[in-house]
């Protein structure tokens, strides 16, 4: 059974239909790389999965919870579906550790002491043990993004959505973030990434999804798809970015 099941999802912003019937199945442990031109609907699709965007028709079921329903328990959904953003979005008035501790204490009612132990653990995982008490403004972009990943991990999600998480980083900082994501993938975390890192998609991904004009245009095993793209659109896209 798939962990995330997307069925014929349609989404419009006003007259502009950005998702034109997207279907996708994601199993536990999958590392799905969603690629495509800007405006192809990949970020919107990702944001639909944890309910940051609504959609007009179709269905998304994540970890057994129907996302689009009127009575959907978004809190329950989001406890199991983490998200990391392009712009990091760390809370600037809180230290790295406090950023990580916030949701466990507020949402899961965990004690501060216990939350700090978890924070130490997840920050160690992303290689930032010594930055626990640093404020976001004292961290590099790569470090901030790793804290953001740790913050999401502290909720013990079953799926993590990564929305172009290296796109706002200086080139030399991209790898430190990708290494963390790769480690998560090796540990069996289910990941859905919207990304422009083609090599990463090929080497770490278990599934590649090429979106074009609001549809899944081509999907398959990354190495095979990259080696022999079937559609001219993907051939052209790979030629341009690869």
């Amino acid at each position, binding site marked *: 059974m798939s962990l995330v099941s997307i069925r014929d999802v349609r989404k419009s912003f006003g007259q502009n239909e950005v998702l034109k019937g997207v279907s996708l199945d994601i199993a536990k442990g999958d590392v799905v790389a969603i690629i495509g031109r800007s405006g192809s609907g990949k970020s919107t699709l990702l944001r639909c999965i944890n309910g*940051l965007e609504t959609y007009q028709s179709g269905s998304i079921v994540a970890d057994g919870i129907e996302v689009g329903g009127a009575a959907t328990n978004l809190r329950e959904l*989001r406890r199991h*579906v983490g998200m990391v953003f392009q712009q990091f979005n760390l*809370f600037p*008035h*809180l230290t790295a550790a406090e950023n990580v501790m916030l949701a466990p204490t507020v*949402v899961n009612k965990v004690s501060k002491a216990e939350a700090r132990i978890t924070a130490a653990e997840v920050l160690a995982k992303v290689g930032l043990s010594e930055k626990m008490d640093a404020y976001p403004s004292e961290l590099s972009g790569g470090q901030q993004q790793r804290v953001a990943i740790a913050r999401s991990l502290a909720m013990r999600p079953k799926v993590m959505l990564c929305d172009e998480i290296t796109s706002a980083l200086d080139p030399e900082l991209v790898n430190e973030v990708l290494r963390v994501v790769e480690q998560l993938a090796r540990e069996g975390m289910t990941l859905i990434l919207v990304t422009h890192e083609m090599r990463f998609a090929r080497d770490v991904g278990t599934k590649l999804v090429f979106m074009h004009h609001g549809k899944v245009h081509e999907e398959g095993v990354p190495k095979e798809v990259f080696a022999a793209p079937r559609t001219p659109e993907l051939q052209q896209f790979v030629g341009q970015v690869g």
Partner: protein
Amino acid sequence: MSYKLQFAELLPYWSVLLYGLVFTIVLTIVSTVAGVAVGTAGAAARTFGPGWLGRIVAVYVELIRNTPFIVQLFFIFFGLPALGLKLSETTAAFLAMVINLGAYSTEIIRAGIEAVPKGHIEAGLSLAMTKWEVLRHVVLNQAFRKIYPALSSQIIIVMLGSAVVSQISAEDLTYAANYVASRNFRNFEVYLLVALAYLALAMLTRSALRALGRVIFKAR
């Protein structure tokens, strides 16, 4: 032109003036705390609340910001008794101040909330917090940090504007000055002294607020 300053003639009235000073200080502190609380609730309603509530708050804000404070005060003190709501001068003064600062601070705090990057709110929601939890733990601290100087200025404006409550005989510093002047006719001395007292109060308030800000926003 020669005028002989006679501050000594104010001495017999020192307790009246002191009472007025304390009244003004208490009035300012209470209306600041309550007014900012009203403003926070109003701003939260306008940004995070349901549309109908936001519209009610908008009407309140526009009504208060586009009418003179003295008219608001008179309406509460002289007008409301017609509806059977009779308030003492002191209660009316406090109420008018809170309602007035509440409206201005709603707008100021709302600006702060809207200046918080939308991504921070989405990050909070993605961590399974409700929007009210996001407001409380993520948004408000950042919002207040941004608008603290503007809010401080508004508090001082309201403190100085509180002189108007003397018009309904609430016994503030200006009321005390009027009282003394009407008895010893030392208008020049009394109003000079009271002007200096307001000046000192304003400067004191400003530094107190600055110090408070440093404590609250000590991070970074």
